[in-house]
């Protein structure tokens, strides 16, 4: 079933000057995400096609804001020239799965586990993944196992914890609260864990793909169309490009 998001959640959060700010001024139907994954293909003499792909794709968002005044975009302006890194997170990603998609499961060749209806290969023992978490938020790490000997160790800002499954199959989870924004490190102590999900809140019972958020972004200068003065305030249509960076 789809993740449940409280109606009061803003669609996006932006970390500007080390403070998470909600942002909900985006017009309906106007947050478009484009991904760019470098790739190439060659074709052999007989017509066999071989495609090569880079291992990662980076996203960019285009937001349109209509009929707004400058106070609505003040937080974006603060982000454009922010002296510190700017991070972006969507409520859907925070409720769905914050990990990078490729980190949620292992390599081909390992056994495959049914994660709430989605078959995924297991991680090998000793695999380590990292992700970004928000400080002060109750964060849940969940996974699917097929024996009680599987376990995860998690190091997060402010502490460590581990996930030891109580039963030999199904989905299991552990909750922790980081003391500050930062990276967590998850180590698979034994082989067989898969279907990882990192959420702020109760995870879905079917594996949901990772959205790799919070992610570091840059915010481009705003495009601005002045619509005129209405009821004593200037109204603009704005559009902004936000790009994921490393």
């Amino acid at each position, binding site marked *: 079933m789809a993740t449940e998001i409280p109606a009061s959640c803003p669609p996006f959060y932006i970390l500007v000057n080390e403070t998470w700010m909600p942002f909900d001024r985006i017009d309906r139907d106007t947050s478009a995400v484009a991904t760019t*994954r*470098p*790739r*190439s293909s*060659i*074709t*052999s*003499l*007989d017509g*066999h*096609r*071989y*495609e*090569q*792909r*880079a*291992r990662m794709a980076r996203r960019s968002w285009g937001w349109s804001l209509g009929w707004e005044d400058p106070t609505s975009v003040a937080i974006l302006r603060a982000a454009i020239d922010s002296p510190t890194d700017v991070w972006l997170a969507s409520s859907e990603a925070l409720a769905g799965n914050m990990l990078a998609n*490729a980190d949620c499961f292992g*390599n081909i060749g390992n056994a495959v586990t049914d994660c709430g209806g989605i078959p995924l290969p297991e991680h090998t023992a000793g695999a380590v993944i990292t992700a970004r978490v928000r400080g002060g938020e109750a964060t849940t790490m969940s996974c699917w196992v097929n024996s009680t000997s599987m376990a995860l160790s998690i190091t997060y800002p402010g502490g460590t914890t581990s996930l030891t499954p109580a039963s030999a199959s199904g989905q299991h989870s552990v909750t922790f609260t980081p003391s500050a924004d930062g990276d967590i490190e998850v180590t698979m102590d034994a082989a067989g864990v898969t279907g990882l999900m990192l959420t702020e809140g109760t995870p879905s019972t079917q594996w949901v793909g990772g959205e790799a958020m919070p992610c570091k972004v840059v915010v481009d200068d705003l495009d601005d169309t002045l619509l005129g003065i209405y009821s004593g305030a200037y109204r603009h249509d704005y559009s902004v490009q936000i790009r994921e960076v490393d």
Partner: protein
Amino acid sequence: MIPDQTPSSYLLPDIKISAPGIDWLSDAAVSSWSIDRQLVGSTIPGNVRSANGVSVGAADVSIVNTGVGGTAIPWNASAELRVETGDQLALYVEDASGDTLPLSTWIINPVAGALSTRGVDIDLLEAQYAGRGMAQALEASGATGDDPVDPCWIVGRLAAQAGFDPVPPPVANLILAAPLHGSLDVFQLGDTPMTLVIREVEAWSILDGDVAVGPTSPSRIGGFISDVDLRPMDVMRDGGSVFITLNVTGEVFSYSQGQGWVLQIVNDPSTSTHTLTVSNALFNPTATPVTFTPGESADWPTRVQVEIQRDWNGTTYTETRARIRSSPDATWSSWVSDTTDPTTSPYWVPANDSFLLSGGTIAGTGIGSLTAGQYAALQVTTAAEEDLWEPSMAHLKPLGGSVVIPWVPADLDVWAGIRDCCSAWLGAAIVGTDGILRMLDRDDLAGVGTTGEATDIGVEWTDLPWELDPKDSVDRVAVTFAAASIHEWNGVTPGAEAWRAPDVISVPGGAEVTIPVTLDRRAMVDMATYFLIPGGGNGGSVIDVYGNPEGTGNRIPAAQYSVEARQTSATTAEIYYENRSGQTQYLVTDADLTTGGGEPSLILNADVVADYATKQVIERGLPASESQRPLEVDLTPWVQRAQDATTIADYLYHRLASSGLWKVEGVRVRLDWTHDLGKVLRLVHSATGLEAKALVTRVHYEGDPGQIAQILDLVLLPWTFWDFNAAWNALDPAATFADFNTAQGTTRTFRDMAADNNWTGA
């Protein structure tokens, strides 16, 4: 294992840089890169469809500057972050599972960037070129025509100087070291070196991928130490141990004929026999052998180390004992010992000491009956040093020839020497992406011995661009070589002339000068340090010296100067002259001589000098007057025997005179990380009926975001008799061509068979 591109959608591995200690490259992310490696020959031009020589590599890489602070610039205030050239970095491939594949080590050459971008472009040279321009010094082999060397020895000695040692180099406390890669040369330390008296080798073979003596029996090397310096025995009489470390398979004896001891090593994987035994007297070792675990060293699967001790009571040896192990960390086996009275041996001559090593039987004693031994990388030492197990950086291969007196022209640097030697013998020395130098001989480069990796070009290649150029084939081959003309000291006049100063040399009062001597077209085998006085002279270190450049007046007495010479390589020496007076001295002959007066008087003589002035030519194909596409090669000084030159001429003519051979350049193929120089492919294409063997002579990678392109150059290989035999074998697995030949009997010729349509094979 980094996978090749087989799945249709191939997640590219990362290209990474390893540059420890270079802060401006820490965490550098590669954005685009290219690597180009090709086989470059010299003696035989590479464009005539026969590849040889050395591998040459160049690369460049563009990085995103993520170093500390992201400010890698040449003027950075912090020295660690300042961009510099000349450092070394290694490139490697790493895929998602953490597997890596090396892509060679490189030297940073020009680096370029701009303040407006975060990209930095680095040009790279293959790291072995740190040795380019390095003067080479090929030791005089000591051969006087009795111990010719295989040319791979020359490559091995030059490669060792460039840092690619085929065997562990001699350690500090050695008594004797014999690398045995193509030559019977030994290294010794000490004032009274061993005199080698026995050197018998019938074959060079390959052991562990390196050259070794044997296994044809007998093969013996050894030396005789005079009673002045009974070095191994001295150590043992004082209660010390002598260590013998060598690579060995089969049965090998180490023994001292006069002192009576015998040590027998059996390292035979075919019968799983791995034993050591000793005898205190020179007869069949009767002590119960001790067994050992072989192959415990990952670098040297056939290397063993034996420790020997002998007890001396003042008159005789009461016991010989030894133990063995196969790696520096392995536990020693238990001791095996024998207390037989050595005076019972008919060969007991206690005043003499000798160290002899024999693979197989001990001549004259009837000892030895198992598999003849194969051995290499021998060192006899007084301590068990860790360096005795240094891994090999060069895998040599006999090039199948015989060099009577080896030398390398003094003006060639190390890599030019390796290139020219390999090229002349139609072989190749390729430094792989793992940094190990591997030699291929002419059979490898002709595709003999392998059917090649099956390659359906319809599946693997994007295209087949072919070119047929008449200039690439020849109708005449002329191979020039020079046999060594050996001039030996006849015992009367002082030596054979090796070098003569071109001008009168003047030395200011009180000065010490070093005069470099470079021989052109000559090799010194054994340098005697004396000089010639024209008109006879009285031997010894005497030279003509006058106080004026014309040679008039009184000769300057010997007490007022000193002169000595030192041989530094087969073709170079140094003469040290010290003027002990206050006046300038001139090295000029007596002006009153009827002939040769007033001439430069500095002449260096040697006991044996070889020159290569007399050239011979082996021809194949059309005579010079009718030939339109001749190939003339000069193999001096590398090839010195007529039979070797004939073999090379035949090989070249067969390959280059074949018509219809096209070449392939610049073909983009499906990414396969195992493609490398010297690889043989078997190309097939069912749609066009192609079936051919080809040799990879160039591998080029171009990497960009989302793409790694691999582009090859290949040389087509003419079919050889080996291919015919392999094809025959494939048709009828029970028969070889020898069987077919036998079935024809002695009366039936090929012409008969060709005319007989009804032949049934009976």
